[in-house]
């Protein structure tokens, strides 16, 4: 699956986009976050406080228990500040 990071999450992870293949037991957003944090480095810091992280799966906002599957595009970003 493709994972995207925007704004300060991109800066903290050090990457804007990565292709990942988590183990099959990673079935939802929460699971994916735990797995990404476990890889250490910037990801753990970027995803430390989920109260300031929004998640989209396939470009739609989703809650943390939303399922994820191979082929999905998952994005992590701060609350939006456009307009």
């Amino acid at each position: 699956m493709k994972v995207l990071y925007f704004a300060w999450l991109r800066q903290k992870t050090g990457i804007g986009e990565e292709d990942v293949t988590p183990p099959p037991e990673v079935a939802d957003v929460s699971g994916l976050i735990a797995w990404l944090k476990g890889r250490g480095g910037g990801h753990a810091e970027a995803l430390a406080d989920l109260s300031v992280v929004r998640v989209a799966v396939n470009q739609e906002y989703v809650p943390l228990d939303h399922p994820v599957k191979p082929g999905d595009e998952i994005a992590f970003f701060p609350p939006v500040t456009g307009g």
Partner: protein
Amino acid sequence: MAVRVQREDFDVGYEVGRLAEGNGRVGGVTSFVGLVRDFAGDDHAKGQDVRAMELEHYPGMTERQLEAIEAEARARWPLEDVLVIHRYGRLEPGERIVLVATASAHREAAFQACHFLIDWLKTKAPFWKKEDTPDGPKWVDARAQDDDFTARWEKG
């Protein structure tokens, strides 16, 4: 559907004029133009100087969200036309960021829909502002008040 996400500036007079052009049912066009301010935060007296800002967005999701917001506005109010233009990239104080315009036979519908669109856009469209201040670049924090402004449009 008329949603545009672009680096380039836009011409307010041309865009607002076009919404009514050749459509004699339009009685009013309400529009909102958002501009880059020269201070950070909400209080001019307390805010740091802003020399420029960088607007990042999520290509693809941005258009999708704006189109969803537009469809919602058209479902709620009798609109003859709707236009949303949002810029990204580097912008300096005084530059235009966003234009939302609605055309309707009725001014009340045009006002409500335009206000709804900018309120929703503020909390749903995936844009992030980074301000260039004397202390260096700073990501702008989302305001809780904007969530309240969006919440008032939620249906009972």
